[in-house]
């Protein structure tokens, strides 16, 4: 078959391709594929005809227009993906070709940019979580906590894990998927009964902070109970909340994971996001995925390299601590730029804006006839509201007013809706939500 479609992504013209073929001593490109068995070579390939850039832009614009962006009206949906402000410098830097189109930094001499960024990232994530070591190489919050469960079993050489029922349902499902072939027992236990359920067979316990329903749990007590029986405390924590909240490391957590999306990453229909993963120094050789370390070159200059690679799949193969290879490095860069720009004061200010606005909203909604707040614990930016009507109906009527409501959690709370308020929500938006809820009741 003669390939005569000249794509703008392929520089060599048919004449130049002929030159290369002549150099090799072949007649046509088809000759290169002679190893493919007869009858299987050049199958039909039914795809829509190619489009010009102008046409593809139109098509994608049309598809995008059929979605409702969070910024197009008041939005109060969180539940694992959050609407936060992203400074313009994040995209400006992360889309530079030198970062965007580099591979994993296996050649450190020509990858110091990526490597030093990852070292900055490890530094800031371990600081946020109050932990000794953070890696740079997990997919998202759900898979990070699943890998933490596997790691807790490796560290303790035990095969039973207790997961609080206040951990995100999606996280619990992913933990189950990751553990299905490992002979690990997962016990989902009411949050208040986790400490009492720990035995000498328990590898670890998993809690979320703030938990999926927004509340703050007593991590100190969980840590003490776990450690008394030689189990590890695994916490999945919202990194942005760490701008004001005491980090899990200060409560004695052994492994702290998280969803890095709040740190400068757009919601983007669920990905790409960024898994965060940190632990105590003593467990470092059981950690999954990539670590960057500082060293020196032959002339004594400081430089950075991928290190402790004997844990990883490309060296250890079936005995590796994880199969992870490509992960989310570009978003480790995005969150590093975000954290550098926000800094110690900016991150605290954003966290406090979320906190105060969420409390203002909860306070006002709790006073509405027919609505109540079924949880009494301290919370950060999310809270559950019991509605006077099914949450699906409430959400439908909110959307008539172009307000995106919360996530239905009616399996756990009577007509429950999980609402999230962040720094993106103005007082006017919150007031609009409150008055709309009042009318809907």
């Amino acid at each position: 078959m003669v390939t005569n479609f000249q794509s703008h992504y392929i520089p060599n013209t048919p004449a130049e391709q002929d030159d290369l073929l002549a150099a090799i001593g072949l007649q046509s490109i088809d000759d290169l594929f002679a190893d493919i068995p007869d009858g299987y070579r050049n199958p039909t390939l039914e795809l829509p005809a190619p489009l010009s850039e102008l046409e593809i832009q139109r098509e994608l614009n049309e598809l995008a227009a059929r979605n409702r962006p969070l910024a197009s009206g008041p939005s109060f949906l969180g539940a694992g993906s959050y609407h936060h402000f992203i400074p313009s410098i994040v995209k400006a830097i992360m889309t530079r070709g030198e970062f965007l189109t580099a591979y994993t930094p296996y050649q450190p001499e020509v990858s110091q940019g990526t490597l030093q960024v990852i070292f900055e990232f490890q530094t800031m994530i371990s600081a946020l979580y109050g932990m000794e070591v953070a890696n740079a190489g997990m997919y998202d919050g759900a898979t990070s906590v699943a890998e933490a469960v596997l790691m807790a079993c490796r560290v303790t050489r035990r095969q039973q894990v207790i997961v609080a029922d206040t951990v995100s349902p999606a996280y619990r499902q992913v933990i189950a998927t990751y553990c299905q072939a490992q002979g690990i027992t997962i016990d989902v236990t009411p949050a208040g009964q986790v400490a009492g359920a720990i035995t000498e067979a328990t590898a670890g316990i998993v809690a979320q902070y703030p938990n999926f329903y927004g509340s703050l749990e007593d991590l100190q007590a969980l840590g003490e109970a776990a450690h008394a029986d030689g189990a590890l405390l695994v916490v999945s924590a919202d990194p942005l909340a760490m701008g004001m909240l005491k980090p899990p490391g200060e409560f004695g957590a052994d492994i702290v994971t998280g969803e890095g999306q709040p740190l400068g990453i757009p919601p983007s229909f669920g990905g790409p996001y960024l898994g965060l993963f940190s632990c105590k120094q003593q467990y470092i050789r059981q950690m999954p995925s990539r670590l960057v370390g500082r060293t020196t070159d032959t002339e004594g200059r400081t430089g950075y390299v991928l290190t402790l690679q004997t844990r990883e799949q490309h060296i250890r193969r079936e005995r590796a601590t994880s199969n992870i290879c490509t992960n989310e490095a570009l978003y480790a860069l995005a969150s590093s730029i975000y954290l550098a720009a926000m800094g110690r004061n900016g991150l605290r200010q954003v966290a406090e804006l979320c906190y105060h606005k969420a409390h203002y909203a909860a306070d006002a909604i709790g006073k509405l006839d027919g609505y109540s707040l079924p949880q009494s614990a301290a919370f950060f930016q999310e809270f559950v509201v019991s509605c006077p009507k099914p949450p699906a109906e409430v959400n439908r009527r909110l959307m008539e007013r172009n307000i995106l409501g919360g996530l239905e959690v009616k399996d756990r709370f009577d007509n429950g809706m999980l609402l999230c308020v962040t720094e993106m929500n103005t007082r006017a938006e919150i007031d609009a939500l409150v008055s709309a809820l009042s009318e809907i009741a």
Partner: protein
Amino acid sequence: MLNKGGNRDTTRMLMDRSVSGRVGVITPELDVPAASLPDAVYLRDSLPLPEVSEPEVVQYFTSLSQLNFSIDTHFYPLGSCTMKYNPKINDEVAFLPGFAGIHPQQPAEQSQGALELLYRLQEFLTEVTGMSATSLATLAGAHGELAGVLMMRAYHLARGDSGRTKMGIPDSAHGTNPASAAMAGFDVVTIPSDADGNTDLAALREIAGDDLAGVMITLPSTLGLFDSHILEVCQVVHECGGLVYGDGANMNALLGRAKLGELGFDVCHLNLHKTFSTPHGGGGPGAGPVCCGEILTPYLAAPVVERTDAGEYTLSEPAESIGKISGFHGNFGVLVRAYTYIRTLGAAGLLSISGNAVLNANYIMHELKDIYALPYDRTCMHEVVFSADLQRERGVSGLEVAKRLLDYGFHAPTMYFPLIVHEALMIEPTESETKETLDAFIDALRAIDAEATSEPELVQHAPHTTPVSRLDEATAARRPVLRWEPVEAAAD
């Protein structure tokens, strides 16, 4: 001595630059009454993040970027990684507010455009691989492998066939294959390659029994070769009741040339960040969709997108799904880019991709095989694997040849992989490079070979022109320093 990052110093890290009172972002004033703070037990005392201004952040990170080689700045023939041009339009559309700004859990009627895009991409990838169905939920190649081998496990268990504990994997395979098989609970059995670089059929027949769950085959192999026994491989595995997994890392060679499903593969993953041009980002994000034949379709990872009779798109969980494997619906932003790429190229464009990728690799092979040893002297696919054995005889290793290439302004090939080739140098030019670049690269490798004779120490101590020279990796691993520490603490 300062590391050069453009004209700005990159040796000081963010915390070294931090000055109390500098501001990087101004946040809005609080416009609601302040609430009382939670109990002090929940509040942190200090937050050890830097304080730097916006210009410093931009200058620092930009200077760091200039220490990298990348596709946009350098030829990057890193074998097995498919470092092709990443079209800018793909990034632009992924950042549209109607894509980047939508929440994964907003009601389906408010995300029909996104769901339709995912549905169409599922169809495209199913067609390209010749399979029956696709799940886009997996976030990278290895993540797709994990899903795929869990599906194989679930299939056997559902048939009451619980004795299939072994997974056969060729000795040339990527490390992710055995690592993924182990995560799915399988014992890994290594299958040797024969003298031509194909699967050793006799060895495969020896392990083909009622304890074999299946095999994981990379096609073309990591030797850059199309396994001319592939039909027999699938037949032997199927006859013993096993399944064939396809690692699609090297699919750039086969676009429009062959379909894994038609060859007999039961399930495969694709690396969208390789074959479908989504930027690698210094190590991700990727996307590793899983495509499978009919018998495995019920086991696909959740969710998949379905189209109702009314023409609406919804997320659903396959009947016997191995479960949810990531937080939401996959790396949507990556999927938008891959969709755009396929729409831009169509079938003719994809054929042209594979044709030119394979042509360029064979050209490099032909122009260098007189001076670099070629362990398997036959037509290669998208990459060529040389051995530096002939240079080694003169005291120069494959690693040193690769490092010397950096001085010539080319990224190194993949070194010492696959493991079955001594001093391996694995070169993948992709379709994106001009003949002039290929010729310059060939000239550089010829010049380095001449240097191995005339000035071996020049090659042995390379690179000489990069921001740092050879780094002490042994000390980095023996005494790990994994985060910035204040000077006083570091001195302790």
